[in-house]
């Protein structure tokens, strides 16, 4: 697990380093032509030269960067967020209606000589001169043609997918870039309020990480629109104002339509199962279920990475990324945010859950099985899937006379398969030849399959 984390972190770091501006291949080809101006500098190098004080660029340096945020909605004002494959910066132009000449997706070639880099409340700016407070004044529109040379337009820039947690730690590196946050929502008090409320409204993830989204009243066309209350994807410009601050380009960048964290926390297992509508879904962060472990990891009849969890409403099969330590009858909460709810051989499974996302609630519980005939079990196999079922006075037969392998359970009302893994430590035990009371986990595995935990507790 630790290794995995390290690998993951390494990926994130590499991602940060390359942070490529990907041009989607499936999007329409860019229009226009690029000017014949050799590019010899990067935004990242330019940003790196800012060390506490603004400066004039005196070298013949040229960057090429794509507009990722313009002033069409009015939420960016006299500035354009531009980024190349290395970083982003705010280009200051003392004019309105910039989106007419430099709309989102336009590649700009910028001759930096004679321009200035400064900073306002932590936001690095590229413009015409330094103000007394260290910020940068915008290029006059009469001067833009000396510095800014628009090239191709219609270039689709993929946002950098990140998290609020990562953004809060790296907002200087990410600033003025287009970013995407997933599984986020507005915090309580920031839902269903005008975007331009106070000094910004709060966006959060289900783990409680937060960041400010600032919209200026009287400028953004959507300033008075109400913020959505759901959870989902949020695309924006990573801004800085004494710390990270997000700038929405327009409300079309916001896809907060899913169930919010509150709805996902303390979900019953039945509610979780009901979210599956025929195709795999990635569960929103904050999704969590609690229940009693009905599988027995000590006796080997369930794979070490698999847990069956039952609450009063139903049961769920969970596949961890490694062996989990939770014994039979443990009272456990499992955080499933970001994991997938899938159909696995006919049964619902939450897959690829990190073991660290499960935590004991203390104590142990005993799940109550559905006491039923085999016919009833077959009839309710979907509703009772992954829960305990108890059959009274049934025969066990077929196959060898030991538990290992596949056998048939028949109580006179119908029959079902009883499966014991060869690795189970009771696989070589003889099963009773007379009728027995049998408790087992009802599994859907290309049909109904009954799985006992161990004979000592399940076969009488």
């Amino acid at each position, binding site marked *: 697990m630790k290794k995995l984390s390290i690998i993951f972190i390494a990926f994130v770091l590499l991602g940060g380093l390359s942070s490529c501006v990907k041009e989607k291949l499936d999007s329409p080809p860019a229009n226009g032509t690029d000017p014949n101006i050799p590019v010899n500098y990067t935004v990242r190098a330019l940003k790196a030269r800012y060390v506490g004080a603004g400066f004039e660029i005196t070298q013949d340096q040229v960057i090429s960067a794509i507009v990722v945020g313009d002033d069409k909605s*009015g*939420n*960016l*004002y*006299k*500035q354009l967020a531009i980024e190349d494959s290395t970083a982003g910066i705010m280009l200051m132009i003392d004019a309105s209606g910039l989106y007419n000449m430099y709309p989102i997706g336009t590649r700009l070639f910028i001759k930096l000589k004679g321009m200035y880099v400064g900073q*306002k409340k932590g936001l690095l700016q590229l413009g015409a*001169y*330094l*103000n*007394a*407070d260290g*910020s940068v*004044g915008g290029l006059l529109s009469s001067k833009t043609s000396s510095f800014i040379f628009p090239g191709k337009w219609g270039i689709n820039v993929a946002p950098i997918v990140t998290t609020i947690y990562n953004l809060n730690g790296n907002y200087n590196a990410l600033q003025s870039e287009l970013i995407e946050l997933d599984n986020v929502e507005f915090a309580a008090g920031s839902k269903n309020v005008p975007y*331009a409320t*106070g*000094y910004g409204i709060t966006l959060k993830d289900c783990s409680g990480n937060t960041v400010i989204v*600032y919209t*200026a*009243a*009287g*400028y*953004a066309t959507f300033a008075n629109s109400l913020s959505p209350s759901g959870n989902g994807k949020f695309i924006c410009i990573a801004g800085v*104002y004494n710390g990270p601050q997000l*700038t929405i380009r327009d409300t079309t960048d916001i896809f907060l339509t899913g169930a919010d964290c509150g709805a996902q926390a303390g979900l019953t297992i039945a509610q979780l199962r009901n979210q599956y509508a025929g195709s795999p879904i990635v569960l929103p962060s904050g999704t969590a279920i609690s229940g009693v472990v009905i599988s027995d990891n000590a006796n080997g009849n369930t794979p070490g990475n698999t847990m069956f969890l039952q609450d009063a409403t139903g049961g769920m099969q969970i596949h961890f990324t490694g062996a989990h330590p939770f014994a039979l009858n443990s009272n456990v909460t499992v955080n499933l945010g970001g994991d997938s709810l899938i159909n696995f051989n006919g049964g619902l499974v939450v897959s690829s859950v990190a073991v660290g996302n499960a935590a004991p609630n203390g104590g142990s519980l005993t799940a109550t099985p559905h006491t039923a005939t085999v016919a009833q079990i077959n009839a309710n196999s979907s509703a009772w899937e992954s829960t305990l079922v108890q059959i009274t006075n049934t025969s066990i037969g077929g196959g060898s006379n030991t538990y290992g392998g596949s056998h048939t359970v028949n109580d006179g009302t119908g029959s079902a398969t009883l499966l014991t893994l060869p690795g189970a430590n009771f696989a070589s035990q003889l099963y009773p030849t007379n009728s027995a009371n049998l408790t087992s986990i009802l599994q859907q595995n290309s049909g109904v399959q009954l799985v006992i935990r161990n004979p000592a507790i399940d076969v009488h």
Partner: protein
Amino acid sequence: MKNFIIALLAVGFLAGMSSCVKEKFTAPPVTNTDPDLTANATIAQLKALYTTNVPVQITQDYIISAVVVGDDRSGNLYKSLAIEDASGGITLSIVGSDLYTTMPIGRRLFIKCKNLYVVQYSGMFQLVAYVNGDGTFGGIPTSTETQYIFPGKRGIPVTPIVTSLASITSPNVALQSELIELDNVEFSSIDKNQRYADPVNLISVSHMLEDCTPNRDDVAVYTSGYANFAGSRTPSGNGKVLCIYGVYNGATQLTIRDTTDLFLTGPSCH
């Protein structure tokens, strides 16, 4: 230039004529006439003398005519007056207190500038009386004040120069010591409902005034711990601000004359 002099003479003549009009006095009676002087220079010309970043003594027989736009009544200005003419403003440094009793806001001053110095204090132009060997300088002593300063008419209305925070983020030499008006501004979130300064420990404090643009342009409003309103709290609303424009070490710094200069009663834009 010739036309300009003629115009000046005409203005002087008219001023002289109007000075004959009697005006009502409130006790104690004060003069409300302009002295028999004619301005022959502007504040901009005085500032232009300062070319090498060292104090410059005025050797010409320059006379300026300027109106007091900021006095020391509230204590936020101290031993100085902000004066302006049509060309610009400058801080007149006088070694004295309660200057407002004789030279209140709205009073025209004729100043014989010869032998005074034009200096900069932290970037701010001042008219002073002497420069010490160590580079420090001193205001006009009250003992010699009457040699230089000839107060004239009172109650002259001064129209503030309407500008915006975005326009004054960078220092503007011409605006120095002038009365300006900013509209649709408010104190920043952390500067609302705060004491202007610390009247107990006599510590000066700056609060940021910001506009409502997405970029939130902002500049500092500086208040002396000696101001009689230092212990009052800044308003939280939005509206108009009148203030004296200044700079301090390259950064814009605004000075309100009193809390009556603030009309921040509208709803915040946040």
